[in-house]
């Protein structure tokens, strides 16, 4: 969230990236505030990692500028930018211990020895690696390697921490735990995080703001709430959470599954249809309803999500009516 009085940390000015004449990232301008948790969200190949690598300095934008803390860094190599990247597959140095890995950045910046010790101890404690400092990366589990990668970055006290799908290689349970940990760490440190992921749930949970990308183009930038409740484009509406898209001569609009209401009689309902499937998911259940065809339009299947307070028993094959509150309709660009 951008609050007044916050400091500008990163400014992307019309940055564009082409590989061999092919546009990978269309001209993009945006600002990232100090202390913000910003997520670049999109399917693979949408250009999110390329944007991150341009900010880190591993890729040169074809045109445009990158401003970091008031300084234009577009032409600076990665080692001359005051930010650190947590790599997708960690890229830990295999011939160094955990401690030597973490120490590396401090050594390169010629930080005095005593200060090094202090900062390493601090980073190690924060990432719960104290017992593992003399191990080598190959002796650690995936989650532990992930922690080393983060410790190795934050020990440098960068202005910005870039994270490239840092939890992508971990199993679900560990992912969930580390998501909470990372979010907590970001709050404690107050460092700006730029986070890349293709997991919309992860993005929703962790971010202050989300940038939705598709085919190298920004679809929407907004808080998780804005993105969920008022998606601007078809892509944004369907990529984040489930959605039902209705088309009418006036244009398209979306209604979230939990906003749709089923009713036993078709009378007075906005649409009617047949229940195709009932899915029980514990805390909620879902109805898949095939709506009756109207005119030329194709048959539409909508999803209705009901919470546990709904005690009606819905049967497959039953004809029902479907309604919603018109204020829950979100108009989307085609």
């Amino acid at each position, binding site marked *: 969230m951008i609050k007044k009085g916050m400091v500008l940390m990163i400014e992307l000015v019309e940055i564009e990236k082409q590989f061999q004449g092919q546009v990978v990232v269309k001209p993009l301008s945006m600002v990232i505030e100090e202390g913000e948790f910003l997520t670049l969200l999109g399917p693979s190949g949408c250009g999110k990692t390329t944007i991150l690598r341009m900010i*880190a*300095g*591993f890729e040169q934008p074809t045109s445009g500028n990158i401003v970091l803390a008031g300084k234009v860094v577009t032409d600076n*190599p*990665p*080692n001359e930018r005051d930010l*650190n*990247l947590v*790599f997708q*597959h960690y*890229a*830990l*140095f*295999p*011939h*160094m*211990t955990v401690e030597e890995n973490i120490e*590396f*950045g401090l050594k*390169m*910046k010629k930080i005095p020895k005593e200060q090094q010790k202090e900062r390493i101890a601090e980073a190690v404690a924060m990432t719960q690696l104290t017992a593992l400092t003399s*191990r*080598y990366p*190959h*002796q650690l589990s995936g989650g532990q390697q992930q922690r080393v990668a983060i410790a*190795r970055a934050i020990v*440098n006290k960068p202005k910005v921490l870039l994270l490239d799908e840092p939890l992508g290689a971990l199993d679900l349970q560990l992912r969930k735990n580390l998501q909470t940990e990372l979010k907590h760490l970001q709050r404690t440190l107050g460092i700006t995080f730029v986070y890349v992921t293709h997991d919309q749930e992860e993005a929703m949970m962790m971010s202050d703001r989300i940038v939705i990308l598709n085919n190298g183009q920004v679809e929407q930038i907004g808080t998780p709430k804005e993105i969920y409740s008022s998606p601007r484009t078809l892509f944004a509406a369907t990529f984040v959470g489930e959605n039902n898209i209705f088309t009418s001569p006036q244009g398209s609009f979306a209604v979230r599954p939990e906003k749709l209401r089923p009713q036993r009689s078709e009378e007075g309902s906005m649409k009617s249809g047949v229940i195709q499937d009932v899915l029980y998911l514990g805390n909620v259940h879902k109805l898949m309803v095939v709506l009756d065809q109207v005119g030329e339009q194709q048959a539409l299947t909508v999803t209705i999500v009901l919470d546990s307070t709904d005690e009606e028993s819905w049967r497959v094959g039953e004809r029902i009516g479907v309604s919603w509150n018109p204020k829950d309709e979100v108009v989307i660009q085609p």
Partner: protein
Amino acid sequence: MNKSKWFFTPVLIWLGLFLIVPMLIVVAMSFMQRDTLGNVVYSFSWEGYKTFWDSLYLGIYWDTIVLSITTTVICLVVSYPLAYYLANSSPRVQNWGLILITIPFWINFLIRTYAWVLLLRTQGVVNSLLIHFGWIDEPLQMLYTKGAVLLGMVYNFVPFMVLPLYVAIEQIDRRLLDAASDLGASRWKAFWHIALPQSKAGIMTGSVLVFVSTAGMFVVTDILGGSKSSMISNIIQAQFLGARNWPFGSALSVIFVLTSLVLIILFSRVMKSRSDRTREGGNV
């Protein structure tokens, strides 16, 4: 016994018959004597080893070690940049580079070495050119010097160094260099702290190959070194074929095999990183 272990049987028989058994024969032979006609007398003696302490042989022994180490170091210094460049080039350049490096092997090794005679001799190509351009008045004595032998060795064994180095460098994860750069390392520091330690295996393999090959080489010394410079292999060859003193030749062989072993073990100790040692100790 695991079935798959039988796959090793042919190689074990081969090594046993043609490496282990001959080695044992050489060791046994080194403790024997010879009679005046050059026949081997099957009785125990230290004679072969005692002869070695002659200052002439000690000098040659020392020269051989120095030359082999020098050759190895020069090969390493010449090959590393080439291997590094190749490993970081496009696949097309890599393919061509590797072909160019292996092309000399298509030509007989003796012919390649004799070619150096044509280049280096007093009326050779190099001297003629230097005189033609007026840079020297008298031809330089290049052939039949230690320098010529060193040149011949380096020339012959550079590919033995380039190929293992190339393989090791090519396997380095480029993301590690990105990570180093991200953590503030300049290109040189990223190379020194990350790429170089990661290519240790290649340095080790290449160095052992070049060292052992140089130490055992007598043809290059014969052709380019003339009669003045000898290596231990020339002496061994002479003892077996010329002087017919098999026990002494065997003693020299045993001494040199042991020396090489000790040097290689020392070298691998120095090269071995701590991570390799913990790896040997299993997971902690």
